């Protein structure tokens, strides 16, 4: 479904990665593992179509996103959800945050109408919002201010916010690196729930155990490209690339 073909990306003169190919299918979880600073976040931003690659293509169901007009790219971009390492919620209630993706997809007249509606009746929140909050176990916090949440809860809301508009692909950038075990478990269950809904999930993580727990396939990003891709079990037990083996065994430290 979402494919990256021979991507290259750099910041100024500094090469981040090159000849990088990656693919995620519906209902599949792909973990991108690699040391910190290797370019996982840049890769995810490129996959999210928020950063144009220097070279290569990102395709969604066969449509190359950077070969089409900007106006045609927006609907493609809107089929992708993204959760960042830090929650970065907006001012306002939890429900309003989760509703954001749904809101921007409506026409302006619709938005104005539902805005008036919610001011008058305070009962305009879409079912999809509660549904997404249910996945991260936070329905009871729907009316709280986002600013009053703990870091872990905020990250869970951030996950629900990307899930609420039912994207085809969900990109997670180190979603649990700042979280305690309980919140981590909730997020990992939510990844599972997303897979069961048929969403293709790409999760960038430096936590190899997490990759082992959640992913169907693993892509190993070392140096400036993906050194190996394959089913999780095979990568962790018998990686064919020598550097990958060293990285997984912990011998190769960056």
């Amino acid at each position, binding site marked *: 479904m979402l494919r990256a073909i021979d991507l290259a990306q750099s910041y100024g003169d500094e090469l981040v990665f090159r000849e990088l190919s990656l693919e995620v299918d519906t209902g599949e979880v792909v973990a991108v593992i690699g040391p910190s600073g290797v370019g996982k976040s840049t890769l995810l931003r490129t996959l*999210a179509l*928020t950063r144009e690659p220097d070279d290569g293509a990102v395709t969604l169901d066969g449509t190359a996103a950077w070969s089409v007009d900007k106006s045609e790219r*927006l609907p493609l*971009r*809107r089929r*992708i*959800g*993204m959760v*960042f390492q*830090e929650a*970065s*919620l*907006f*001012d*306002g*209630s939890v429900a*309003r945050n989760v509703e*954001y*993706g749904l809101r*921007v*997809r409506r026409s302006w007249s619709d938005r104005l109408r539902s805005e008036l509606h*919610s*001011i008058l009746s305070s009962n305009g929140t879409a079912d999809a919002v509660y549904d997404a909050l249910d996945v991260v176990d936070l329905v009871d916090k729907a009316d709280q*201010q986002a600013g009053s949440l703990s870091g872990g809860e905020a990250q869970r809301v*951030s996950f629900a*916010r*990307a899930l609420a*508009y039912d994207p085809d692909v969900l990109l997670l950038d180190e979603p649990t690196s700042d979280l305690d075990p309980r919140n981590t478990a909730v997020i990992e269950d939510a990844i599972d729930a997303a897979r069961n809904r048929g969403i293709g999930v790409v999760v960038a993580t430096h936590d190899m155990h997490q990759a082992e727990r959640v992913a169907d396939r693993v892509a190993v990003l070392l140096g400036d490209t993906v050194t190996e891709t394959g089913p999780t079990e095979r990568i962790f037990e018998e990686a064919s690339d020598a550097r990958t083996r060293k990285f997984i065994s912990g011998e190769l430290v960056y």
Partner: protein
Amino acid sequence: MAKRIDGRITVLLEPLMHPLVPVFDLPFRDGYVWSITYVSLYVSLVAVTLSTLVSIPVAVVMAFSQFPGKQFVKSVVNSGMGFPSVVVGLAVLFVVSNQGPLGSMNLVFTREAMIISQFVLATPPITAISLASISGVNGRVRDAAHALGGTRLDVALVVLKEARYGIATAILAGFGRAISEVGSVLIVGGNITSADGISKTRTLTTAIQLEARQGQYETAMILGTILLALVLVINVIVIRFGDQGVSR
């Protein structure tokens, strides 16, 4: 109540001790105080509204886009905060005077000319402070709004909402500059009242200046109190308005 007033200090303190009473004793014509208060508010509110309509889009564009000369525009705006108001008044007077580019509109000594000069004075602080608060919104918030499917306009709206306290402060700073301004409104407005004592272009500030110069300290202090009260009330309203935006 003390009737015998000797010496300057007592004269100055008298209206503070019973501020409302002297209003009725003073040689005001009917509607004098009201009319200058109205002119002050009218000119400042119109000028600040126009400034806001110009400043915020400018601040948004400057915060969101790169263009050649951006740094130059920024330094012009920043130094604009320090424009001496009398110089602005003089410049506006030249522009609206008979020989000036707007001479045909006969704006000398009118409220419209005062609005122009207050607009020039209020726009730089509103733009600069709005720009600072918009730029201060965490970049991750922008990224999130964009990644969740927001268009550039959607992202700008999110950022404006996050920056609303700073923007409210910017508008208040602009309003504060406009309503407390003496020099330029005196030059372009002329501090005029009609024959029956109703203000045409007299504002609270220019009236205070005039009354104080004529030794009418009580009148000046009453006008000063009204001016302070106005600024206070408008600040409270704006901050309240900003607060209500958060609850949803």
